[in-house]
């Protein structure tokens, strides 16, 4: 698609809520502003402690975040900062150690069975490794058809739904359905994964490093797909990345994670142009693209 669309900070309009300036809470979390829109998905004081050979690993430490409807929230942090763990807890693929997860005002922290599957019709995900995400023995067709039961569409609508979802990511049933994962490129695989997530017509899409294993042009391609989905379907996107450049390209709001803690959050503008936390500054300094484009301004 747009080869020239290298990730650079998209222009963001100033918002009234940021006028009061950043606040630093007792535990050191810099909060520039809080979203004013209603949150679709939110988590409160979520913790995850792993027991690895007797040692406790506090992978996610007291994280509270809100996902405003129709917005993109980026969670940025270094490798090992607990982003994937947070995402897996939000997806209810992994139990929380403590804390609550709320979806549209309903506590979903401990739902099971049919209720959990209903939750997954609303909250879907795309993962980091587009090859490992595929069952290599399945064609794209059988992968997508698998979702039909949960998506609750009858046979007559099924083909139309599949075509529609592939259409969002720029693929057609004719050249995708019969393919096995090894017969596609990395970018195609990842786009199929996005199409799969859309089969349920979800409200929230979590993209956990969905672009990090793709090379630059494919990355922009997938980023644009996500951007269009937000614009066209009003999808709420949680974009997880270690690359703050990509985060600024796509997101409305940014939360920065360090060692399991959220250390800074606010609108993309606030976090990128007036970073308060030391860690955020370091992350920003590590992005050559962004530094270049910041200097230009």
């Amino acid at each position, binding site marked *: 698609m747009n080869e020239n669309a290298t990730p650079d900070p998209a222009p963001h309009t100033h918002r009234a809520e940021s006028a009061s300036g950043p606040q630093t809470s007792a535990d050191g979390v810099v909060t520039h502003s809080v979203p004013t829109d209603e949150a679709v998905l939110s988590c409160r004081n979520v913790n995850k402690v792993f027991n690895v050979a007797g040692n406790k690993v506090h992978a996610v430490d007291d994280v509270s975040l809100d996902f405003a409807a129709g917005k993109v929230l980026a969670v940025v942090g270094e490798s090992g900062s607990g982003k994937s763990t947070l995402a*897996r807890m939000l*997806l209810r*693929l992994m139990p929380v150690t403590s804390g609550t997860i709320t979806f549209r005002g309903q506590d979903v922290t401990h739902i099971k069975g049919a209720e959990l*599957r209903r939750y*997954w019709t609303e909250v*879907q*995900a795309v*993962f*980091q*490794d587009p090859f*490992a*995400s*595929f*069952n*290599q*023995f*399945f064609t794209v067709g059988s*992968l997508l058809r*698998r*979702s039909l*039961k*949960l998506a609750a569409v009858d046979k007559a609508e099924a083909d139309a739904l599949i075509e529609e979802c592939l259409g969002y990511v720029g693929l057609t049933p004719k050249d995708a359905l019969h393919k096995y994962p090894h017969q596609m490129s990395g970018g195609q695989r990842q786009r199929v*994964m996005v199409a*799969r*997530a859309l*089969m349920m017509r979800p409200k929230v899409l979590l993209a956990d490093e969905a672009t990090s294993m793709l090379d630059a042009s494919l990355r922009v391609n997938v980023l644009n797909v996500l951007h269009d989905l937000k614009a066209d379907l009003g999808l709420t996107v949680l974009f997880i990345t270690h690359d703050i450049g990509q985060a600024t390209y796509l997101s409305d709001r940014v939360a920065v994670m360090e060692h399991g803690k959220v250390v800074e959050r606010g609108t993309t503008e606030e976090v990128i142009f007036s970073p308060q936390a030391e860690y955020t500054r370091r992350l920003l300094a590590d992005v050559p693209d962004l530094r270049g484009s910041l200097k230009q301004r």
Partner: protein
Amino acid sequence: MTQELAAVAEPKQASLLTRLNPLRGMNLSSRFWIALVIVAIVMLLGLAGFVYPTGSGEKVGSLYDAPGNGLLLGTDNFGHDVVAVLMAGTRTSLTIGLVAGIVATLIGVAIGLIAGFVGGWVEELLMGFTNVVLAIPSIIVLILISISLPQSTIWSLAIVIGITSWPWTARAVRAQASSVATREHIDVARLSGARLPEILVKDVLPYILSYTVMAFVLQVSGAILAEAALSMLGLGPSGTDSLGTQLHWALAFQAVASGAWWAFLPPTIVLTLVSFGFLLLQASLDEVFNPRLRRGKKKQMKKAAARRAAEARALAEAAASAVDGSSRTRAGESA
């Protein structure tokens, strides 16, 4: 520079490849074919009993008639044709091996799959049970069960062998399943609404199928040997010929002492062939199931050879320049 490098690397690489690779390639496939031929021969021997004119229960001579007179391997202690008995016995042993292998594999895969995939206390419970079964000497259990059965048929024997030998399969499958369980496609399957049984069958089992088949082959050969051991102890299927019962009677009627090698050597050889053939098959299946692995190896070898050549050249160059440099400095010093 790079062209030079390639030119230097090429002949070296070619010689390496011709020296190692074709041999390797032949070894891999020939191992498989040899195993297949051995197993096929044994199976044919078992099936040949259906067309062999003499029945295994037909009295054609007296105690230990030597080979000859139209009897290729003479007679056994009952005066039966050893060839006919051998054919029937091979068939019985293979049947028992196959049935026991299926039983053991089904139980082992079910337990290993659930333990490895589900994890947590389910895994601990199932693997605890598996280890207990594993710790009990299975031959003793086999003997006890065989004795307690009112009449042992080949089917009861096969099932008894099967239910004492699954733990190995369960352990192997558990390890595989728990590594597949962390793959992202499992999360994707769950998010697509798949339930546990479906995930186990469609998303985990296909990934470990090759290991399962290999474990099955091992179970078959193990079961054939277990049957032979039980039958030699006189706990074999009653009224049926098997390789084990053949050995049992040969021992009971002093075949070794009376020099009647045709009574005990043929079943021993067939048993050896069976277990060797299946073991070889199992070992070579790995490569058959993973052709990518094999090609990968070749590629890796090529790359490694090229790299070694490049390194050697770089080293030589470095050494040469070092010599140059040192001679120059020395020249400088003296000046």
